[in-house]
């Protein structure tokens, strides 16, 4: 599924957070969006997912929805957004409840997601009994249960510690190795962008405009290898150079406000 954003602007009252965003997300592409706090990254994602209404401009999706897809555009949230009163498997079941599925298929969708995320033995546990990493895995299993065509990830690893973040990045890589799900990945972490994305979109400080779109030439599977490091370091420097200036200015503007 492709995503086409054209001349998108969003204002909260007098505050312009996104200004004239033009962006195309190709089928199967993973685009990371980075930028300083308050630049409208999450708003862009909300608009793409239809939970924030844009002030002006258009956002459209094109392309075929794969078989068995129940919710083409699916979120994975920073705070996991799990129902604390439901067990792991019931949290996954929630998003299937309003779909007419046979009980066998319902079961299969829940169980396969739980097994893939290594949650099978925790399926009867409540969220409070799980670590942050496990909770986000429930969020991923829930997203997989609807067989999404496009994933919108809103800083999915920001609430986790460094080791857990590494482990979950591997999970994401595995996921995208198996399924060519298009993804918009919002983060403020350069390492995540460099590990996971095909392209990186750098947003300016508020009002968010596209500063630059950087393509990472190295294929995802090879980025851990020594031969890839020179290219990645170069991209990293470029991204950090772009981000640093914006972040510094954003900081000053926030201090003045």
């Amino acid at each position, binding site marked *: 599924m492709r995503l086409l954003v054209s001349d998108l602007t969003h204002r909260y009252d007098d505050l312009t957070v996104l200004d004239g965003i033009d962006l195309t997300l190709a089928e199967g592409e993973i685009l990371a969006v980075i930028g300083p706090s308050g630049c409208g990254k999450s708003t862009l994602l909300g608009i793409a*997912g*239809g*939970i924030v209404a844009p002030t002006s401009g258009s956002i459209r999706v094109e392309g075929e929805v794969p078989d068995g897809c*129940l*919710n083409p*555009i*699916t*979120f994975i*949230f920073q*705070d996991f*957004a799990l*129902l*604390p*009163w*439901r067990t792991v498997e019931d949290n996954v079941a*929630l*998003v299937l*409840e*309003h779909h007419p599925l046979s009980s066998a298929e319902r079961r299969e969708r829940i169980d396969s997601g739980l097994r893939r995320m290594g949650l099978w033995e925790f399926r009867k546990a*409540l*969220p*409070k009994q799980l670590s942050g990493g496990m909770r986000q895995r429930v969020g991923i299993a829930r997203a997989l249960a*609807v067989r999404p065509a496009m994933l919108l990830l809103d800083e999915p690893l920001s609430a986790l510690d460094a080791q857990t973040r590494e482990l979950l990045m591997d999970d994401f890589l595995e996921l995208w190795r198996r399924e060519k799900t298009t993804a918009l990945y919002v983060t403020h972490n350069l390492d995540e962008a460099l590990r996971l994305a095909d392209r990186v979109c750098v947003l300016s400080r508020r009002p968010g405009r596209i500063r630059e779109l950087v393509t990472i030439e190295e294929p995802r599977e090879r980025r851990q290898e020594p031969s890839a490091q020179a290219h990645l370091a170069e991209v990293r420097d470029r991204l950090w150079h772009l981000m640093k200036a914006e972040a510094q200015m954003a900081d000053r503007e926030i201090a003045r406000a």
Partner: protein
Amino acid sequence: MPDSLNPTAAAAASTMGQPVRFRGGGFTVKRHPWAALAAFAVLIALWEGASRLGLASPLFLPPPSAVAHALSGMVTDGSLWLNLKASLGRIAVGWVLGTAGGMLVGFAMGIFSTARAVGVPLVSAFFPIPKIALLPLFILWFGIGEPSKFATIGFGVFFPTVIATYSAIDSVPRNLIRMAQSFGLPWRSILRSIVLPGALPGILAGFRITASIALILVVAAEMIGAEYGIGAFVLMAGNLMQTDTLLAGVLVLSLLGLAIGTVLSQLERRLLNWR
């Protein structure tokens, strides 16, 4: 430093370094399971002793033994059950009516902004009225019998339930609702699967408040006009100067309040085990 007065100790300290002194680990609450029980026992013993020694007049402050005797008399002659049944029935009907109505209105106010715009000023206006003041009016409307008591209790329970319910709905995390919307859950499912369970802790906390309001109001209403009921029983005992029976009635009320609180705690533990 006292160590400096002792040269050998000072020398030892300088070569071995100073041991790090434990400075406390923050305030921790220690459990003293027997303290409460002991305090009760001491209080009752003092009270009994004061009475036996003639320090307090048994007419104005009967000893615990006399209260216990009066209570056992209530059990054997059936007056305990007769009066308790009357009070419990009034609490049950009044509380259920007030709670059902209050939750209905509270949900409407929590979900629909129009209902809230209309409801909040009305609730704020009616909530502070001491509901027992309306009993005479309810007696005129519904007669001296049960309905006026149900109405007083129901009315007293209604407003706190409204407030507890709509603030509980406000406290349901918005990110969960957005999540459900992003997965295309219909409005009804969001209400049933997210808003209702998410609001449950606040609603149950409201039950605790309304249960004690119901207890207060039932006693007050029974004192104004009732043949049976713990309130009427206590008033009657007072009129007859039977202070031991009076205190036995008060003891029953205290135990009743305790029992209701325990039931609610069990309910919370059962329903909110996910917290």
